[in-house]
């Protein structure tokens, strides 16, 4: 495509008053690559847009630089078909955050226009990825419990064909044996309507049910999954668009509990799930002799919220204990029922059930560490009542019910990373010391993915295959695979239903976007994808290891085999590649390099240092915009380039920057670690680790290490940004000019 570039500078929103427009136009003309340069007082208005469209029609303009507001706003307005568009942020990050009419402000605007032009020159129009295989819109649901069945029905209702795989011979999961449920609106116990759900699923024509079956192998990616299902010794293949993972949970093994809790010391010490197994709707009886129970104690958090056992809260045990206590009270209102709890966690309207239980006379005792005393037939619980401040004794108990927690089905099986380490032995360890710790992926035999990084989605915490709980509900860290129900996090019936519907919605979105060749959340709609110049690949495996989403497989010779429908377009592979063979149509190592090179570096005696800021476009860049919106001013020596993710930062940019005489480099990324905010999970962590290797580069150039710094910024940190930038500028000023200036 022959490019015809036009630059449109908006003078609205204060831009025209703060900057010298003539000089800015001159800069464009000096650069020479743009055929047209026009200013307009209100570019986003009808008249302004007409101006652009007219040039496109009459002059054949096909590449546009809009120098106006932040690319984060009006992106739908400046969207022209078959036309490359680049945005130069003159409003939020120049005139709103710097002194109007100032020389430095003018220089900043001019540099941004040059950078925009450089990018417009280098980038190309994206062509959406179309997979070679036939595209499937079917949804696979793994797990036939309450979550799986609800998901299957929701998907069928939305018009999708569903394949439902359940490993047990019957549908139903854990709920199959539950007689009564406590769920919304929590006013009373309800009969479990599961049988109706099973009937609805089995009768639905759009749902193909496999029971007593397992997913033997999952190959491909969203839209092009090939799933092999094994049932009764025979295998079936299905083409699948997206997967809902509803593999459920298993109760924590009570044998592992502390002896204090008395499990095993008496047959009358049981767990909440054993209570559920025994409950038939008839009288609750003592396991030892079948006598009707009269005095029962429920001990909550048995091996839960305990670093030795399950460190987390399973969220449902409090409501379950209330339900079971009410069942006992229902059969005998004079029964003495005690609930010993750490905190009653009756989420949302489940509080009403707690109230009901209190009103029936169930006695609640707040305590951290109850002890079960079993001597022969006698059963008692002794515990420090924290409200009373004294130890209390519950005597003559017929039964003690321990609230054990939920363990996700993904928590079983050996860890793949561990296996690899053992296989590779000691030698390799030292070499990879600085690498990002690998994700925990267990061979839990649920999806059996044919992925380079392991057969199941990686665990975030405590073996739950989740992502950041606020930003990415339902998303596992494998594109097109959405976790729902208790495998994602412990939850009760009401949440499970919501979860199932949510995950299905995500699956449908994924299929829809992938069918258009677009990325899914968080870069939803992005039509670019990474392209590999395989001739230059050295089979170093960096891209296949570092991809946070396992999007790249490899062949026997360790050549990367990218699967673009699994890709989230973060560019981490691009940052990882030492050969720089990975690029997107509008985002690549040379494109950013060109932008860096277009920054004008004043001579040393002008005393105008330059600082390059590589800002994550998900948090740091919007934070800079926020500072501008709030009219906060900061140092005008900085030049910001937004990155898709700091993980896509290639070290060569830092070398380029410093060798051009730019005085400092500041990386602004997201918080990483346990409460990570990175949209691509590990991006900023990877950048931080890569940066630790930059000292070599700096040494080679004989430069001070303080010239390059990494900072984490979240969007709410914008008030701190000006101080941070000014402080870094002051540090750079102190260090003195970069000796490479003018080379």
């Amino acid at each position, binding site marked *: 495509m022959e490019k015809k570039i036009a630059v449109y500078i908006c003078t609205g929103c204060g831009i025209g008053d703060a900057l010298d427009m003539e000089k800015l136009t001159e800069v464009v003309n000096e650069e020479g690559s743009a055929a047209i340069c026009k200013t307009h007082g209100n570019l986003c208005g009808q008249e302004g847009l007409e101006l652009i469209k007219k040039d496109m029609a009459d002059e054949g303009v096909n590449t546009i630089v809009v120098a106006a507001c932040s690319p984060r706003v009006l992106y739908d307005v400046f969207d022209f078909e078959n036309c490359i568009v680049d945005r130069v942020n003159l409003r939020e990050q120049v005139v709103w955050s710097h002194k109007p009419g100032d020389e430095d402000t003018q220089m900043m605007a001019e540099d941004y226009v040059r950078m925009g032009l450089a990018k417009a020159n280098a980038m190309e129009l994206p062509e959406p990825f179309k997979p070679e295989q036939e595209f499937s819109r079917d949804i696979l649901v793994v797990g036939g419990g309450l979550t799986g069945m609800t998901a299957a029905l929701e998907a069928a209702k939305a018009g999708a064909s569903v394949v439902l795989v359940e490993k047990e011979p019957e549908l139903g999961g854990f709920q199959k044996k539950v007689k009564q449920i406590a769920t919304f609106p929590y006013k009373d116990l309800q009969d479990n309507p599961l049988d109706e759900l099973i009937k609805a699923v089995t009768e639905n024509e759009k749902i193909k049910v496999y029971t007593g079956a397992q997913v033997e192998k999952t190959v491909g990616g969203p839209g092009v999954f090939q799933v092999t299902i094994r049932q009764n010794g025979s295998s079936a293949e299905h083409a699948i668009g997206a997967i809902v993972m509803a593999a459920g949970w298993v109760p924590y093994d009570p044998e592992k509990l502390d002896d204090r809790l008395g499990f095993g010391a008496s047959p009358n010490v049981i767990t909440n799930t054993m209570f559920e197994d025994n409950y038939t709707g008839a009288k609750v009886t003592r396991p030892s002799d079948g006598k009707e129970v009269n005095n029962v104690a429920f001990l909550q958090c048995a091996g839960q919220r305990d670093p030795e056992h399950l460190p987390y809260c399973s969220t449902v045990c409090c409501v379950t204990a209330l339900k079971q206590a009410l069942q006992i009270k229902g059969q005998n209102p004079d029964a*003495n029922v*005690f609930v010993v709890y750490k905190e*009653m966690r009756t989420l949302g309207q489940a509080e009403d059930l*707690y*109230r009901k239980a*209190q*009103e029936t*006379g169930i*006695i*609640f*005792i*707040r305590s951290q560490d109850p002890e079960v005393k079993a001597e022969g037939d006698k059963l008692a619980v*002794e515990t420090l*009542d924290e*409200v*009373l401040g*004294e*130890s*209390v*004794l*519950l*005597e003559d108990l017929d039964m003690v019910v321990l609230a054990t927690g939920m363990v996700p089905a993904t928590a079983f099986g050996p860890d793949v990373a561990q296996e690899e380490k053992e296989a590779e032995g000691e030698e390799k360890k030292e070499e990879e010391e600085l690498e990002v710790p690998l994700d925990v992926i267990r061979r839990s035999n649920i999806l059996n993915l044919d992925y380079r990084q392991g057969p199941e989605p990686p665990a975030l915490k405590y073996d739950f295959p989740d992502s950041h709980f606020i930003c990415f509900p339902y998303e596992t860290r494998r594109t097109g695979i959405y976790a729902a129900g208790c495998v994602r996090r412990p939850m009760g019936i009401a949440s499970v239903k919501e979860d199932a519907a949510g995950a299905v919605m995500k699956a449908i979105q994924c299929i829809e976007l992938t069918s258009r060749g677009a990325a899914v959340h968080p870069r939803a709609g992005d039509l670019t994808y990474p392209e590999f110049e395989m001739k230059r690949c050295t089979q170093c495996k960096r891209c296949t290891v570092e991809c946070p989403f396992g999007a790249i497989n490899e062949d026997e010779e360790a050549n990367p085999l990218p699967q673009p429908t699994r890709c989230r377009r973060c560019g981490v592979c691009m940052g990882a590649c030492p050969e720089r063979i990975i690029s997107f149509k509008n985002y690549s190592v040379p494109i950013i390099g060109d932008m860096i090179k277009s920054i004008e570096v004043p001579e040393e005696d002008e005393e105008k240092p330059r600082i390059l800021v590589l800002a994550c476009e998900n948090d740091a860049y919007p934070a800079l915009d926020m500072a501008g919106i709030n009219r906060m001013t900061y140092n005008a020596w900085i030049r910001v380039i937004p990155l898709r993710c700091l993980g896509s930062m290639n070290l060569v940019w830092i070398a380029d920057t410093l060798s051009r005489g730019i005085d400092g480099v500041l990386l602004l990324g997201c918080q990483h670690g346990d409460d990570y905010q990175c949209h691509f999970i590990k991006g900023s962590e990877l950048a931080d680790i890569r940066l630790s290797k930059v000292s070599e580069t700096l040494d080679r150039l004989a430069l001070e290490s303080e010239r390059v710094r990494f900072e984490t910024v979240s969007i709410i940190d914008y008030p701190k940004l000006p101080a941070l930038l000014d402080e870094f500028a002051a540090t750079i000023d102190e260090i003195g000019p970069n000796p490479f200036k003018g080379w």
Partner: protein
Amino acid sequence: MSTKVNPNLMRELEEFGLKDANKCFHCGNCTAICPLSTEENPFPRKLVKYAQLGLEEKILQSAEPWLCYYCGDCSDRCPRGADPGETMMVMRRFLTSKYDWTGFARRFYTSETFEIIAVAIVGILVGLALWIFHADNPNMEHAALNSVWPAPAIEIGDLIMAAILTFFLLSNTWRCVKFVMGDLLKKVPLEIYATEAKELIIHFITQKRFGECTDRMQWIVHLLIMTGYSTAFLLVAVFLAGGIELVGLAWEPIRFQRDVIYPFFHPMRIFGYYATFAILYGTTYALIGRIKKSKAPYKSTHGTDWMFLILLQLTTLTGIFIHFCRLLDWAMATYVIYVIHLMFAIPMLVLEVPFSKWAHLAYRPVVIYLTRVKEKYYEMQKGTA
């Protein structure tokens, strides 16, 4: 040694009017809001917890129920509707029945039928006694009470009644002291008991602790009823015959029951009017409040609460009628109403003072006093330690 939990106590307390205590989830808002709760004696949450766990011993030893005047702030602020103020009230009923060694208080509190029958029997006995024992030649032309029931004779009845009441009330109060003090009873030096005695009197007269409650109206109403009642009690029990005639200590100018009506500004008449006004205002306010359930302390009304207020109100009303009948010089009407007046007043005194709600007139100041004594004792212990 761990405390044993007794889930059955709640059922027992329900007989004393406990309704919502099991709704409490121990957030502690009640204790935080209570202007009378202190670090040493926090309440009411503690008592709610005792009730839930059935810790009868601890309840018996508790001074807190008597430190509460039931302003109702706690019940208003309770997020669960557990009505902690009413729980404290129930505790006072429960304790009154526990202090009473005769077991009469317990029956009185736990059975409304028993309560009504007891009041009715005493009332009828009083009526019969007055019917049978009266002077031979009543003055039927002029209203002259002394011509029917001479003041000295009534005074003898008064004294007998007072002796019996004092015996029961004091013996019950002694039990209260023993429960509250426990082992400390004999450990505390007499000196402290003596120096703190002024607290007993101050609290009895001013109820100044009640004044610390947010709702000062409750304090004023309570003070009106208390002072009105005390004044009336002094008038009818001490000054009925102008002192104690029996031992010759009587002075005619201050005799309450006499046939010649005092001039309007005579102190005895003024006192009488004050007592009448104070009791009538107080009881009417409380009755209307309880009927309308206007505020937290008036929301739940136990049978004994109604009985107490109604008897007090009727006693006062009949007292007013007697006064008007005498002013109008209606002889027969005066005598009849006098009988009715005593048929209300005496059951109220005989039953309520030692065995029911009125008993708090002794328990509350005594327990406040003992609390002070304990605090002084602990301060002393700290000083010597």
